[in-house]
C-alpha cells in the first residue's frame, strides 16, 4: 500500500491545471504504486489565500500554486517570481533559486515565519503581457491616470507610474472592462486570457511588460509529510519538478503561440508589442518600489542583493553570448 498525498492546485481548469496534472503524472510514472498524488482543483479543500497555511498545518499535504499567493505574510514572496527584472527571465530566476542561493533564502524565510513547508520551484513562465486596453498604447504618457486591474507588487509599480489601481474580484474584470469601470487589465498569458474571454471586452492586446515578468510555479509540501517519505520518493518529488520545468516551457510556449494566433487571426484582436517608453517607465517605478520596501524590510533587501549579484554575473555572459534571435527570425519570416 503506497502513500497518498493530497495536493490542491490554485487552478480550477485551463492550462495551469494541465500543468499541475503534468507534474503529478511525472511523479506517478516514476513512483509506480509507492506514491500517489490526489490532485484537487482550486477551492476543493481551502480557498487560495489559505493554501499555504493549509499545507503548513497539514490540512493539505501539498499545493501547486505561485509564491505571490503568500504575499500576505511577507513582501519577499514577490521576489520569487513577480519581482523586479534585473535583465533576466524566469529561466534565470529559477537558476538563481537552484544555484544562486535562492533556495537557501527561501528556506531561511520559511524558518523565520515558522512555516513547516518544503518547496520546489519550476515552470519558467514567459513574461506576463501588459494586458488589454481600450486603444493602442504608443507612449508611456498614455498610461497616466488609467484605471488598471492587477495584483501584488505589480500594483505598487503601476501606482508609481501614475496609474490608478482598481481592486476587483477576478470574475468582475471583464464586465468592468466592457463597461469602463476599468480602462485596462492584465491576466496572465494568451491561452488563459483567451479562456477568460478578455477578447470579448477589448481588442487591443499588448505583449511584453516588466510588471510580472518572471513568474513560476511553487510545488509545496508539508515538511513532516515530506520528510516521512523514503529518500527515493523525496527524490522523485524533486526531480519530477525539474522534469516538469522543461515540459512546461515546451508545452506552454506552443499553446500560447497558437492561442495568440487565434486571437489575432480569428477573433480580431490587435496585438502589439508594448513600447519601450512604457517598459523603461516600469523600470524606474520598480526602483522606487524596491528602494522603499528594502528600507522597511532588511530581509527583502538581502534577497534583492543576492538576486542582483546573480543576475549581473549570469546575464553578462548570456547577453554577450546570445546571438540576436530577432535578427535571425526577421531573416526568415520577415
Amino acid at each position, binding site marked *: 500500500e503506497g502513500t497518498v498525498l493530497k495536493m490542491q492546485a490554485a487552478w480550477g481548469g485551463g492550462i495551469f491545471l494541465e500543468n499541475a496534472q503534468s507534474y503529478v503524472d511525472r511523479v506517478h510514472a516514476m513512483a509506480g504504486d509507492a506514491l500517489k498524488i490526489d490532485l484537487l482543483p482550486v477551492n476543493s479543500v481551502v480557498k487560495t489565500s489559505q493554501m499555504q497555511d493549509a499545507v503548513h498545518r497539514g490540512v493539505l499535504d501539498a499545493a501547486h500554486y505561485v509564491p505571490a499567493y503568500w504575499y*500576505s505574510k511577507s*513582501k519577499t514572496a514577490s521576489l520569487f517570481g513577480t519581482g523586479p527584472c534585473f535583465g533576466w527571465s524566469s529561466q534565470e530566476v529559477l537558476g538563481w533559486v537552484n544555484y544562486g542561493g535562492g533556495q537557501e533564502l527561501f528556506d531561511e524565510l520559511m524558518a523565520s515565519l515558522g512555516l513547516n513547508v518544503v518547496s520546489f520551484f519550476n515552470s519558467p513562465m514567459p513574461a506576463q503581457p501588459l494586458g488589454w486596453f481600450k486603444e493602442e498604447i504608443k507612449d508611456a504618457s498614455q498610461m497616466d491616470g488609467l*484605471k488598471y486591474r492587477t495584483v501584488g507588487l505589480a500594483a505598487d509599480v503601476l501606482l508609481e507610474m501614475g496609474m*490608478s489601481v482598481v481592486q476587483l474580484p477576478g470574475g468582475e474584470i471583464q464586465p468592468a472592462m466592457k463597461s469602463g469601470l476599468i480602462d485596462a487589465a492584465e491576466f496572465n498569458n494568451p491561452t488563459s486570457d483567451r479562456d477568460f474571454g478578455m477578447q470579448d471586452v477589448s481588442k487591443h492586446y499588448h505583449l511584453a511588460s516588466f510588471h510580472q515578468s518572471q513568474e513560476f510555479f511553487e510545488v509545496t509540501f508539508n515538511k513532516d509529510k515530506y520528510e516521512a517519505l523514503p529518500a527515493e520518493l523525496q527524490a522523485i518529488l524533486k526531480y519530477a519538478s525539474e522534469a516538469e520545468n522543461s515540459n512546461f516551457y515546451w508545452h506552454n510556449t506552443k499553446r500560447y503561440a497558437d492561442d495568440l494566433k487565434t486571437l489575432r487571426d480569428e477573433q480580431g484582436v490587435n496585438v502589439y508589442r508594448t513600447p519601450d517608453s512604457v517598459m523603461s517607465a516600469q523600470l524606474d517605478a520598480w526602483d522606487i518600489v524596491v528602494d522603499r520596501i528594502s528600507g522597511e524590510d532588511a530581509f527583502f533587501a538581502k534577497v534583492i542583493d543576492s538576486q542582483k549579484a546573480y543576475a549581473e554575473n549570469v546575464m553578462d555572459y548570456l547577453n554577450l553570448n546570445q546571438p540576436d534571435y530577432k535578427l535571425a527570425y526577421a531573416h526568415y519570416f520577415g
Partner: protein
Amino acid sequence: MEKLVYAIEGLSLWVGRAFGWCILILTLSVSYEVFVRYVLNAPTVWAFDMMVQMYGALFLMAGPYALAQDAHVRGDVLYRLFSIRWQARVDFLLYLLFFFPGMIALFWYGWEIASDSWRYKEVSWNSPARIQIYFFKTLIPAAGLLLMLQGLAELMRCWKAMKTGVWMERLDDVKETEDMLMHINEPKF
C-alpha cells in the same frame, strides 16, 4: 438560571448590534470609493479591503446575535412535529454533539491561527495598501467564545424547556417586520 440566560443573550445582542453598524460604514465607504473613482478619477487603495473586513466582521460577530434570536435557519420538517420537551431534548443533545466541538475549535485553534497572523503582521494578500488583517483574524476566536457562551444559554433554555414544557421567551428585538407590514402596508386603494 433565567437571569444568566438573559445576561448572556443581552451580551450577544449588544455585540451583534454593535457590529451591525458595520453595514453603514460599508455603505458609505463603498459609495465614497465610487464617487472618488468617477468624479475625481482617483480610486482609493483601501476601500476594497475595508469593504471585505466590514462585511466579514459583520456576519461573524452577528452569529451569536442570530443564535440568541433563533434566526438561524432550521430544517424543521420533523422537528416541529415533536412536543416541546422532545424538541428541547433533541436540541440539548445536538448542542453538545454538533455545536460545541466546532465552536471550541473556532475559539482554541482560531486563537492559534490569529497569533500566527500577529507574529508575521499579516496583511491582505492582494492589497497595494497592505491593509493589516491580524485584527480581523482575531475576530474568529472572539466569535467562537461568544458562540460558546450563547450555546451555554441555549443549553439552559433546553434544560428549562425539558423541565417545564415551555420555551423561555426570547429577548425583545427589532419589531418583527412581517407584523409591521400587516399594519403599514394596507393596500392604498
